[in-house]
């Protein structure tokens, strides 16, 4: 009897050093991944490098910024050698200010109702569909969800958005701000994001011998096996670099041999 062929989902290769090894080749296409982290843990840089690596491969990318103006975001990110402003100028990476989008949609209000949430989903999906975006980052979904007062509405928003983006084959990173990434912490501010997301990447700080080290841990990723170990993050001029914090941390062939 012939063994059944093993089905593996196509991957969106993040291009981030070490992350694809952790994920056994990348994020399954069309997934919505929650990148939850404390302040200064490298969420924005990770999100932007995810887009840059996609743009370098010729993919159309979009970034929605809600936490800082795009002008400031681009000024901060352009100091990294991996980032090239031409990608923005040529339209490979499309950066949208959420404030501007709100203004265009008449959503300059303190809280969103059902109609407003649907308008926002429609706008994001329209953009993804029209320009064929395959990589999307929303930075941050926490800021956006603060305007949605009902937990049920937040759930509907994230579920509907994730479903529609998956249908369009768009791999999405939703950046989430959390106050603690250590034990007993929630991976999202509202509690519903983590349940709806296909994957959860947690980022935070850990103290080692008087030094504050950044770490990244993949807690959940539907559709692929992955390491659940903590990895140290270095934000280098060349991009994010992940290295195992423990010798048995990474599960790629190469590192597992090294750790075994």
């Amino acid at each position, binding site marked *: 009897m012939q063994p059944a062929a093993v089905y593996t989902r196509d991957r969106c290769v993040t291009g981030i050093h070490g992350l694809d090894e952790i994920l056994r080749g990348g994020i399954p296409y069309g997934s919505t991944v929650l990148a939850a982290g404390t302040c200064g843990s490298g969420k924005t840089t990770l999100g932007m490098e995810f887009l840059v690596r996609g743009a370098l491969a010729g993919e159309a990318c979009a970034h929605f910024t809600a936490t800082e103006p795009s002008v400031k975001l681009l000024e901060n990110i352009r100091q990294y050698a991996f980032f090239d402003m031409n990608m923005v100028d040529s339209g490979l990476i499309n950066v949208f200010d959420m404030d*501007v989008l709100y203004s265009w949609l008449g959503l300059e209000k303190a809280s969103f109702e059902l109609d407003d949430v649907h308008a926002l989903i429609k*706008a994001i999906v329209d953009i993804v569909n029209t320009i064929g975006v395959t990589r999307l980052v929303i930075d941050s979904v926490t800021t956006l969800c603060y305007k949605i007062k009902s937990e049920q509405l937040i759930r509907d928003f994230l579920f509907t958005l994730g479903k529609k983006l998956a249908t369009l084959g768009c791999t999405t990173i939703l950046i989430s701000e959390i106050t603690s990434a250590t034990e007993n912490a929630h991976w999202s501010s509202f509690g519903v994001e983590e349940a709806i997301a296909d994957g959860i990447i947690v980022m935070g700080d850990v103290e080692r011998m008087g030094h504050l080290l950044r770490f990244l841990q993949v807690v959940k990723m539907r559709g692929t096996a992955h390491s659940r170990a903590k990895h140290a993050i270095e934000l280098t001029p060349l991009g994010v670099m992940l290295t195992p914090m423990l010798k048995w941390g990474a599960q790629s062939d190469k590192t597992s041999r090294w750790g075994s």
Partner: protein
Amino acid sequence: MARKFDFDPEDEEFFSMVGSFGVPKFDNEMHGGIPRGFTLIAFTDTGSGSELFAKQFTSPAEESENTLYVSTNEGQAEIVRIFQKYSWPMDINVRTIGEEYNSTVLERELLASRYRLEGFQLADIQRLAQTRFVDETNQDYLTEVTNEIMALGPYFRAVVDSLDFFLQREDPARVVAMVRMLQAHAQLHRGLLLISVSTNGLDPVIKQELSSIADMVLSFKVRTIGTDFETSMIVSKFRNAPENLKILVFRVTPEEGITPETVERIA
């Protein structure tokens, strides 16, 4: 100590102590006109002719560059048509807030509705991706109008028709504060200021506050008598001259605009 303003003696002679209503028969009934420095609040009924009166009030335009007509309901074209019809001076300053509001705020709201309903086109998305800042079109018309009137010099003449626009969009306390400031400005600079406000839905507290600020309170009324309408102007407050309290029934003629017919003294 109260602020003092030195007036040019020539100006004092030219402008005299009273200014015209723009309706000579009203001036006669009020013993010459309105004392300079007065703020008039006109409470108006719909169809009572108050809009025409507001325009006619600017018609004496002693100094056209120091005369301002602020309309919140009508457009420039309509105002020009009326001024031409009655041969009133056309070189006064006119600000049409309603028209400005329509072309900025309402147009933007219409566009937002279109985006929400029909979605974005590629050109819209390209423009959105290149737009880095929110277009701040939320103008503070209340502050703008206040500043514009405060910038008028001695013996100015100004009309705000009507206050409803501001009361519907701003905190009424802020609107009342603006009227208080303008009243002080008119008094100090011997200006003549007419502010109209519709009685429909007006909060009695606001009405009371406006009445107490005003030097002169007018009420424009309309009622039906048989198959006819009768329009009247009631002068219910005239600071320091209660003998001027009157009910003036008027009609509108093509030659003179508002023309009083009968006068009844309020006992």
